[in-house]
């Protein structure tokens, strides 16, 4: 084992700038999980150790520990176990679909119950996929010119993607696509393969959307009702058009009500962010938050950004975006300084994954992305998300620690 500290004495072992941004985001997370949950009558009465903000602190502690462990073991050593981790993750993703193993929440099987605490295998599957993909693609560039290798890499991506989509968890599945594509690109896969792939995916996605949004009812793909309605809300479609040609007035009315309710969360998140204005209403003073207009179940996890945007305004939003930018660009710098292609691919994977989460989640708050249920890394409440994000950061730092010695 090489001890990099010996080689580059003057350089810090870890990327302190990135670590600083991570720590600030964690503090923000605790403050606003507190704000989001303490304004709620049904949850503010709980004992302190059962409060979300306290649990979030516990998760952060655990996550920092896990990240520390991931940091110290050389990523080369870790990557030897990449495929083991990958198949274990696949196993969990299959298990979660089995009725008595995976538990149902909000109409989707996303959680595995492990004696008292539940975890979301998809969060870890994303990381396992990055590890496996990086390991697979770190072979010599010449081999990547072979179609067989290319399609294997695609397969590696599609397997967890389809399993997650089956849960169903559209958002978590979708973030795998840009991550996989970015890693393929960074690995040096010929551009024409990628262009072919992107056009195929693009055409498929286009057909899919056209089918859902515009096709006559009997030709439409079967989707989960809530996923369909999220897409319809996003594309501003009129529900009543989907009631069928011989629907009664009452049915149409019901569809319109349904539309109102479905678009409610998006609308309320927008009102929260918009009414925050430039400077916000102050911590714990958000009306949308306190009066319960923001979705009760989601405001401390998927919709945490709207609480921040309402209470801290555009300034708060800029700070959050800046902190994420610091993490992402230090990540890209780490990728550039990586010792080898494995390290670079790992870093690219993690950066793309984090970026996809941030973009989809914040984009959803300002209605440039559909509501897909993607957590905001480090800010959203939730054990699996926090652990996953911190382990991902640990992987980045790992690549940094064992970087090239200049």
């Amino acid at each position, binding site marked *: 084992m090489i001890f990099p500290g010996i080689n580059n004495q003057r350089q810090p072992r870890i990327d302190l*700038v990135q670590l600083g941004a991570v720590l600030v985001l964690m503090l923000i997370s605790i403050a606003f999980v507190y704000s989001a949950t303490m304004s709620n009558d049904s949850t503010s009465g709980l004992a302190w150790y059962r409060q979300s903000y306290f649990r979030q602190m516990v998760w952060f502690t655990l996550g920092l520990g896990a990240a520390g462990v991931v940091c110290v073991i050389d990523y080369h050593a870790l990557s030897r176990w990449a495929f083991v981790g990958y198949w274990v993750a696949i196993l969990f993703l299959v298990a979660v679909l089995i009725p008595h193993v995976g538990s149902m929440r909000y109409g989707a099987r996303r959680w595995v119950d492990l004696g008292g605490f539940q975890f979301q295998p998809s969060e870890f599957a994303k990381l396992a996929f990055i590890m496996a993909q990086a390991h697979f693609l770190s072979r010599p560039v010449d081999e990547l010119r072979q179609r067989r290798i290319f399609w294997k890499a695609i397969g590696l991506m599609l397997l967890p993607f389809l399993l997650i989509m089956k849960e169903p968890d559209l958002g978590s599945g979708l973030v795998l696509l840009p991550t996989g594509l*970015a890693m393929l*690109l*960074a690995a*040096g896969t010929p551009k024409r393969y990628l262009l072919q792939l992107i056009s195929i995916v693009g055409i498929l996605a286009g057909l899919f959307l056209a089918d859902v949004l515009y096709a006559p009812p009997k030709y439409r793909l079967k989707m989960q009702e809530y996923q369909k309605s999220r897409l319809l809300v996003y594309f501003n479609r009129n529900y009543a058009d989907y009631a069928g040609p011989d629907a009664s007035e009452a049915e149409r009315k019901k569809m319109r009500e349904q539309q109102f309710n479905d678009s409610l969360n998006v609308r309320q998140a*927008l*009102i929260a*962010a*918009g*009414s*925050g*204005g*430039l400077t916000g209403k102050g911590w714990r003073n958000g*009306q*949308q938050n306190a*009066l*319960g*207009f923001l979705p009760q179940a989601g405001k401390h996890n998927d919709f945490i950004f709207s609480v921040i*945007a309402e209470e801290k*305004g*555009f300034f708060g*939003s*800029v700070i959050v*975006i800046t902190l*994420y*930018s*610091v993490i*992402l*660009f*230090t990540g*890209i*710098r780490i*990728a*550039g300084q990586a010792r080898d292609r494995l390290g*670079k691919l790992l870093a*690219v994977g993690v*950066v*793309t994954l984090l*970026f996809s989460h*941030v*973009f989809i989640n*914040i*984009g959803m708050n*300002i209605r*440039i992305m559909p509501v897909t249920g993607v957590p905001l890394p480090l800010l959203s409440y939730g054990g699996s998300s926090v652990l996953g994000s911190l382990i991902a950061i640990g992987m980045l730092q790992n690549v940094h620690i064992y970087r090239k010695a200049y």
Partner: protein
Amino acid sequence: MLIFDQLKKDDPQLRFLAVMVFGGMVVLLAGLWWVQVVSAGYYQDKLETQSLRSVRIPAVRGKILDRDGRPLAENRPSYNINLYLEDLSAKFQAAYATALTQTRKGLAFQMAAQEKRLNRELTKQEKKQFAVTLKIKNDLQEQTHYEVSSNIVADVGARLEQNIPLAQKDFQRHYDKARAIPLPVLANLNSTQVARFEEQSIHTPGMDMDIQSLRYYPNNTTAAHLLGYLARNNDSSEGEPAEYNYRMDDYTGLTGIEKLLDKELRGTAGAKSVLVNNLGYRQRETVWSPAEPGQNVVLTIDLDIQKASEVALQEAQANARGAVVVMDARNGDVLAMASNPTYDPNFFAERHDPATSAKMWEYLNDKNLRPQWNRAMQENYAPGSIFKIVVGLAALEQGLNPEETFHSLGYFPMPGRKPIGDTAGAGDFNFSRALAKSSNPYFITQALKPGMLPKIISVGQRLHLGERTGLLPRQETPGHFPSLNDVAASSWRDGDTANFSIGQGPIVVTPLQMAVMIAAVANGGKVFQPRLLTRIEPYGATEAAQSFPEGQLRDTLGVSARSLRIVREAMLADVESPEGTGHAAAIPGWRIAGKTGTAEVERNGKKDRSAKNTWFVSFAPVENPRYVVVATVEGGASGGLTCAPIAHKVYLAIQQREQQRDKKAPKPETLAQMR
């Protein structure tokens, strides 16, 4: 710099990634800028519309006071019990959860029973009919909300020993439309109920008592016609924003002073905003403009004289229909204006059960009694003999020698027509005796003298007969008085002149007009604009009160002091001499001058005895006239028998009132107990 270093990387793939990430972050920032900075106002408005409800708070209505500041109309606290739905939301949820579980169980049980009966498992389609549908859930919610609320209401009702009805329909309407404001459950608690509620129910969840101001007329029927009454009306006044989510009960004046000065009395409504949560329940309230109480109105009315006039009128005969006007002869101030039958204006401010309400409205709309009619101003009465005062003044001005005797036949022969009757009888009459005994032939003879008719018209016009005084809106008739053109027309015959000169035929007047007339005779010819309003006192002492000047002259009578003196002396004789028709009005201590009148009224071409107008017009004390009392009763026996006793009682009350004032120890209640 960190970001630009990455953007300038020489590794094309990483550079591409950096550009993508940079672009993504810029898109997010631009989007956030658009939402949070450019459209911030739009979203703040949206936030307000969904979480703020504005409520209009009516102002406390100004008081109406008598000339000494005693209240004729004021406000009293009305205690109401309200149900605060937001405090019940936890109970609602609990009850709904229980009910939902029970329904689920019930449906599952039914399904099991069905399966047992069919001896097979039901198909998916068949199972659907046992599912808990959205409609079942909605119905359950409505049902449980109502049950929780009505249980609490029934509970409070039991403690207050009053059955409080709460209809599900009303409850649901309030829940759907006005969830942010409390649901009024019981209004106008009596003092026992207030005490009971304070003692036992103060901690009942969701129940609380509030106090609202309710219009109150402490003297009930007194001056009802003058004061007018209110009707529920929540409309905004001028200059007030009309956009409110909710409005609390407000009132507007429909008649009388309440109508005339509605704007001043009503004050300025305030507004509060109620912050609601996502379920529409109230969270907290902010009053952003407090209501500004209305202004107080001070009338010229004297409460004691007003009450005495009403009592005297009511005692004149059973179901007396008539009016009394008391006026200050020196300045035209209306001291009392009574009209009977009357009503209690409190009726309109309170809520009643339908039976009471229907009965009251039947009375109010009675065609014969017409209690809503202000007979002192609103009714056309033939003046009868009291008009002889005007004819007498005109004759004296035309050079009539008051001592010259005239022999009366006891009737006046009209060529080609039925003779005009007389109650004074045959005999010799000078002016004084003719006026006191009300000799028809004497005055008809005078009126038929050349040049007399235009003079009578001129005196009448200076008294502004046939014109409104403008004292109160929608409560006044101008009466009728012929013009010079009318009497010069070829259709005008001597018979008309004869009728006219004894106050019949083409002349109708109001008691108020007669009071102005008598005041002019008493005060030496000043025809006053009658005054009812003394001043309007703004709430708070920041602004000066708006005063209405007293003694506004409308005209002068234009007759000599001598003529007036002769008429006054004749009127004095009418009361003073035992054979005078108005002798019943006399009181010890004051010399009263008066004139009785009894006008026949023809209805459908026949004499209608029940519609006969009986009058007594008077002023006192003769030496220094201060008070004018005019009384009229429809269908009375005669002016002397029916109306003079009314004036008698009124003068007694006035005397008592003056003595009280002299003692400077007003005991306002003593006269009120005259009945």
